[in-house]
């Protein structure tokens, strides 16, 4: 029949098209990695490893030590998580377990708004309002410090952290709560001793995803951390300028000659960033997938 064969053809065509769209995502990940390698591999051939992982980043003088950049990224990422974790978990617990409806109706959209603010706007806000505040209150020479970056980053990581933590709390069976309350525990004891511990693996996933987000953040960090490529190994490093991997790439790529060692070095940093975030997300994803394993039915 004519209609029937036409239907069969469109059925086939549609499935082929959406399949291509689905599989394109794998293609894009591979393509990204391929082009990072293509442009970044030369630096590993041109510059000796002890220089590449040395402590000095002065590309003009052929020092390509990425260590201060890596440590800078790690410093503000961890500091950001230290700030964001208690705030985020507390806010998620409040929203899920305690808050009256009206408070939830205000909090949830506010957090979505935070997620929607472009990073360059937060960076601008950080450099023009937060940094002066930090300079005067802490009495440091400049407000553009690792701490300023960590503070801004913490707030940028919060939406991810809160929503994943909320899901984790949500997936704790209601029977746990009922059992605890029935034994005479207060609501607070139930939350603190039963619900939060039961959700901890989900909260850990939230922390990892927040970290992934933080380590890759570029504009805000570049605008508020002062960008001094020094080793953040002294005790006061948190309150001095620091420079991250992302900021280095963003700030310097515009000024390098294509094909120079410096150019390849920036792609080399891109490879490191790609691998770090890939591993973090792989870990977080496997945690999420494991939870879903038996629920694969449509």
């Amino acid at each position, binding site marked *: 029949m004519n209609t029937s064969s036409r*239907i069969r053809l*469109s*059925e086939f065509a549609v*499935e082929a098209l*959406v399949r291509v*769209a*689905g*599989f394109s*995502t*794998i293609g*894009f*990940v591979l*393509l*990204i990695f391929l*082009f*990072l390698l293509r*442009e970044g591999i030369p630096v590993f051939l041109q510059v000796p490893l002890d220089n590449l992982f040395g402590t000095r980043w002065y590309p003009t003088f052929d020092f390509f030590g990425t260590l201060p950049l890596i440590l800078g990224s790690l410093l503000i990422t961890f500091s950001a998580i230290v700030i964001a974790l208690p*705030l985020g978990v507390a806010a998620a*617990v*409040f*929203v899920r377990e*305690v808050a009256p409806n009206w408070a939830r109706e205000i*909090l949830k959209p*506010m957090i*979505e708004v935070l997620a*929607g*603010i*472009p*990073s360059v*706007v937060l*960076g*601008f*806000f950080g*450099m*023009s309002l937060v940094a002066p505040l930090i300079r005067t209150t802490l009495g440091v020479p400049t407000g553009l410090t690792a701490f300023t970056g960590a503070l801004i980053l913490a*707030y940028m990581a*919060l939406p991810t952290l809160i929503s994943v933590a909320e899901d984790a709390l949500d997936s704790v069976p209601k029977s746990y709560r009922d059992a605890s309350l029935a034994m005479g525990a*207060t*609501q*607070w*004891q139930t939350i603190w001793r039963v619900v939060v511990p039961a959700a901890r693996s989900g909260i850990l996933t939230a922390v990892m995803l927040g970290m*992934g*987000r933080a380590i*890759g*953040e*570029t504009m805000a960090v570049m*605008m508020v951390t002062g960008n001094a490529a020094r080793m953040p190994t002294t005790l006061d490093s948190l309150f001095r300028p620091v420079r991250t991997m*992302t900021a280095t*790439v*963003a700030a310097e*790529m515009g000024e390098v000659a294509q094909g120079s060692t410096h150019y390849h070095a920036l*792609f080399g940093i891109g490879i490191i*960033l790609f691998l770090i*975030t890939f591993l*973090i*997300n*792989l870990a977080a994803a496997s945690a*999420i997938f494991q939870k879903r394993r038996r629920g*694969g039915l*449509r």
Partner: protein
Amino acid sequence: MMLGILAHKPANMNTARRYAVQRLGFGVLILASLLVVAPILFVIGAIIARGVGAINWEFLTAMPRDGMKAGGIFPAIVGTLLLTLGTALVAIPFGVGGAIYLAEYARDTWLTRAIRLAIVNLAGIPSVVYGLFGLGLFVLFLGFGTSIVAGSLTLAIMTLPVIISTSEEALRSVPVEFRTVSASLGGTRWQGIRNIVLPQALPGIITGVILGLLRAGGETAPILFTVAAFFLPRLPQSPLDQTMALPYHLYVISTQVPGMPAEIQYGTALVLLALVLSLNVVATVIRSYFRRKRQW
């Protein structure tokens, strides 16, 4: 209710103490939530208060003058709109198509898991790495140069995971029974999707697409080396032209131009923020309106 009864028995010190701890605990939770929300209000309030003075017709519709220290930000606004449009053209078909594949067609195989893994990783790749990738592939290898095309493609790939995840969720929230009923009435899989599932999931998909495109429109790092012009007091003439863009413009005038009047900086930040947040609200309203209206 329990609380009232227990309050009459102060003899039970342990109980009284436990409720004191609970009050303290809840207090901490409320304080933390305030600490989350207050800075958000402060950011928005500060930018509105300091930027609103700069907003006038000229600021929105004129070219920049005097090394960007005067005049308007018209080319940056147009550039951002064009980039977002370009992103939409690529990201919507791939994103919604991919979501349809995952929600409606994909079976539980290792290849499907590989796609999910790829999406998670695309979502996690730092924006500046997308910039490097766009530079390597679109600008240099494919020879598009720094252009709207190169920037849009870069942003589209970056936006893909957002659109796929939200659209897939919207599709999956349509009850599975609708598909079964459609199939039992002789509908093919695609007929069921087109006639029943997609119309029901559309509000959710639109919301997801808007949110994804807003993210793209507000991004700076991916366009740094793929499109953005530092200063270009004219509108782009073709997709292969460079263009100014709002987020990059804000970065430039707040870090690269000495002696920039603060009001113009805040004004630019306000325009960007207003664009993004107002569309954000539109997306949220669409979602909640249809959620209340639907029949299942």
